[in-house]
């Protein structure tokens, strides 16, 4: 019901209303002094208004909590808006062009110049008769200026820097670093090419095959291929950790705070002293014999270190071909890889290199051991269980001391790597039945040499996430490739599973030993590890040589298939948080090229997040680099007629985008 008159407040109500209004607006702006004085006096004698003031203040504080979590706009908002504005402009143009000439007039019946002149006149007349009634007189800029293309809104990311080796047109090698601050939804029309902030010339005489950056960023490990002049091997190169080259064009020594520092625990000498050369050379000389101290080559372009430790680069393994990945331990103290003799005389063994030592040491001698990755600061490796007439696997060298002589080499035979395709013409003679062999996995403490076999069967090349909650591996068998020293993938599938630290039920209780609770923090296996040297372990089911106290590390037993066999080769990498998994499956017809995909795992359930598919599958060369906030890989040459790029997928929470470097001839992204 509406009252016929407005009810008037009495004086008391009016003063309360005035007080409330002043309280309410006092948060917005200062009052007049008179109002302020009046309010103070009123509040002093009005408990009700004091309560109102307190309530307003509390409510205001509550509302202001909304500032803490502002809703984030979608990253493509600018692209959409810019496109709409562009359409808006286009619409205007079409609107003017849509005005038709009166009947009877046809452009084809009059000379072109006259027709165009009439068209202009008609357009002006037509616009003046537009419904808005506002005459449009387009300025020159309206016609001549082209609309800038709609650019997607870049996604700001906080990502670790990335590094790569680039082969220049003259054949020289350059080590480059770049930082990543933003990515774009559409890499082709989005962000500007990622540019390096440092470029260091490397006078490599070896052709690189893979590059590994140390956790400190102070050195790189270059895996060289057998096609190199000096042969295959592994060399270590100190690299600058700061971007001094472009920033200091004058030939002055930069600030000491920018000078590269050796990694913690490293016995490497100081980094290369900068010379007036804007891109100093770090020379590596080929070394054919792994004699400690004899592999150093002091680059003439660098200031030699006063110590006996090389500062430029040196070989830690030569005459061997690295099989699979090489990787630093999380603490940066060790490098592990598996390698086989370059002459193909034997299968691979596990090598360990303590940072700063002159040489990497083979710690197995069974010639059938493969480095898989790091489980904390433990090495996670595979061996292939031999057939009954073959030597037993996993024979470990007595100690990690450097050998006095290179490993003896059996007569040379071809040794294809695991994952290589079977060449039906590789062997001659009577056909032998295909025998599927079973891989085993074990951990090895590089400090103590203690080895702990894992109970899980047929787990090949496991990659455990750094937080120890998930694992990816080939669940299946291997098949000898016919050379006697190599294997290819057999029957199985590529799976993602949970990872048990030993305190949870294992994949198969019938084969699992009692758990002893190895902590997830990946401390060296202190729970009754089996000392490997020089014992022999054949961890097949029920084998008496397996001690019952072996901790049941391994898959949790809920595998999810990522790819069905048959497969040629694969690799997988987790990001530091363990929630993003990148995996690469080789192309059967060209195993150096494969399909790279990234999936996101639920941080709690560890299941694949079906709502997030940031990288559904792209062509990538073997070997990628994943770190905080980004995944980097090298695109194969020939994609859309282009050369290779280092392509980067960056993320910020659940949002992803990409950016890439400019095109280059050959690229090796540092893992």
């Amino acid at each position, binding site marked *: 019901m509406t009252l016929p008159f407005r009810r008037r407040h009495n004086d008391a109500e009016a003063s309360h209303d005035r007080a*409330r*209004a002043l309280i*309410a*607006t006092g*948060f*917005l*702006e200062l009052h007049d002094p008179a109002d302020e004085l009046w309010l103070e006096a009123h509040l002093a004698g009005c408990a009700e208004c004091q309560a109102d003031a307190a*309530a*307003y203040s509390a*409510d*205001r504080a*509550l*509302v*202001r*909590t*909304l*500032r803490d*979590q*502002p*809703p*984030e*706009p*979608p990253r493509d*908002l*600018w692209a*959409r*808006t*810019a496109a*709409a*504005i562009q359409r*808006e*402009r286009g619409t*205007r143009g079409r609107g003017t062009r849509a005005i038709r000439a009166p009947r009877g007039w046809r452009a084809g019946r009059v000379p072109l110049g006259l027709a165009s002149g009439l068209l202009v006149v008609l357009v002006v007349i037509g616009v003046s008769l*537009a419904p*808005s009634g*506002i*005459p*449009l*007189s387009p*300025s020159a*800029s*309206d016609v001549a*200026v082209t*609309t*800038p293309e709609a650019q997607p809104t870049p996604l700001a990311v906080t990502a670790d820097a990335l590094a790569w080796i680039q082969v220049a047109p003259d054949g020289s090698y350059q080590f480059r670093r770049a930082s990543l601050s933003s990515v774009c939804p559409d890499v082709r029309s989005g962000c500007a090419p990622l540019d390096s902030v440092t470029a260091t010339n490397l006078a490599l005489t070896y052709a690189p095959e893979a590059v590994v950056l140390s956790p400190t960023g102070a050195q790189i490990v270059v895996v060289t291929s057998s096609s190199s002049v000096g042969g295959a091997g592994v060399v270590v190169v100190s690299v600058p950790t700061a971007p001094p080259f472009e920033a200091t064009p004058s030939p002055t020594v930069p600030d000491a705070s920018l000078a590269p520092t050796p990694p913690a625990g490293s016995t490497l000498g100081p980094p290369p002293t900068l010379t007036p050369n804007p891109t100093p050379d770090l020379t590596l000389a080929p070394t054919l014999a792994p004699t400690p101290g004899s592999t150093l080559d002091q680059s003439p372009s660098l200031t030699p270190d006063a110590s006996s430790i090389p500062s430029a680069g040196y070989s830690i393994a030569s005459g061997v071909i690295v099989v699979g990945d090489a990787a630093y331990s999380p603490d940066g103290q060790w490098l592990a890889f598996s390698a086989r003799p370059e002459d193909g005389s034997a299968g691979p063994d596990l090598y360990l290199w303590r940072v700063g030592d002159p040489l990497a040491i083979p710690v197995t001698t069974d010639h059938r051991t493969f480095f898989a990755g790091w489980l904390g600061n433990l090495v996670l490796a595979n061996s292939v269980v031999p057939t009954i007439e073959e030597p037993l696997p996993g024979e470990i060298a007595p100690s990690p001391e450097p050998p006095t002589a290179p490993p003896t080499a059996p007569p040379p035979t071809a040794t294809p790597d695991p994952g290589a395709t079977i060449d039906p013409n590789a062997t001659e003679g009577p056909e032998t039945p295909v025998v599927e062999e079973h891989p085993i996995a074990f951990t090895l403490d590089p400090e103590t040499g203690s080895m702990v076999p894992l109970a899980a069967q047929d787990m090949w090349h496991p990659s455990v996430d750094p937080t120890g909650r998930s694992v990816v591996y080939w669940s299946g068998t291997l098949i000898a490739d016919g050379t006697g020293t190599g294997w290819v993938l057999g029957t199985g599938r590529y799976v993602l599973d949970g990872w048990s630290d030993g305190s949870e039920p294992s994949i198969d209780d019938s084969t699992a030993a009692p758990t002893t609770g190895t902590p997830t923090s990946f401390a060296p296996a202190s729970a009754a590890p089996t000392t490997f040297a020089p014992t022999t372990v054949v961890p097949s089911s029920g084998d008496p040589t397996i001690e019952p106290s072996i901790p049941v590390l391994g898959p949790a037993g809920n595998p999810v298939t990522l790819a069905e066999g048959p497969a040629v080769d694969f690799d997988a990498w987790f990001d530091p948080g363990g929630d993003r998994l990148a995996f690469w499956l080789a192309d059967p017809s060209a195993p150096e090229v494969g399909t790279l995909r990234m999936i996101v795992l639920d941080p709690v359930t560890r299941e694949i997040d079906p*709502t*997030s598919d940031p990288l559904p599958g792209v062509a990538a060369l073997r070997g990628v680099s994943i770190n905080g906030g980004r995944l980097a890989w090298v695109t194969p040459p020939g994609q859309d007629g282009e050369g290779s790029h280092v392509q980067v997928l960056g993320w910020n929470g*659940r949002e992803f985008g990409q950016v890439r470097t400019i095109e280059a001839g050959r690229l090796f992204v540092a893992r």
Partner: protein
Amino acid sequence: MLDSGGPGGFATSTGALARLALGARVTSSWNRDSAALFVEGLFARHQGEIFAYLARMVRDPELAADLTQDAFIKAYRAYDTLEKGENARAWLYQIAHRVALDHIRRRKLVRFLPFTGESTGSSPSAERIAMNTRLSGPLERAMARIPERQRAALLMAEVHDLTGLELAAALGISHVAARALLTRARESLRQALVAEQAAEAAAEAERDIAFARGGEHGR
């Protein structure tokens, strides 16, 4: 009704905002290229807060994105109505505010129709779920209870830190009216919060009763 001359401190040409509201074309002094560049800069500086404001007004992030886009397009069209660049923020809020009110008005008209107006897909996106969770607390529900113009005033003043003059300009009312509106908004929010608390208490009591009954049946 629109004020002419900009009571809140930024000057608008008479009738310009009326033309804006009607979606009218702009005048001959309008330069498309300048407008595009200006809006681009405006977007870079204010897209986040405009989106946040609209998201809290309409409580739907996907819709808020559409409305944000709409607001910037309108800003592009109305480029010549801004006579002082320093007032661009309040001017932009005014546009966004009108876009939001227009939408809410249309939504009220179609609210009785089933599954129209708000739903944009068969299943909500993760972003939308997250946003809805964020927008579904007691405070957000209380904010949703108060009239739109009061909600807008509260958001602009307390969350987006508009001054009194900017608030008046953005709301398209006089300074005095803006202060009064904000006072009413605080009182409305206070009552809405009390009502929310009462509703929560009632729901909790109901759950307790249901639980007790279930326990009795289980014996």
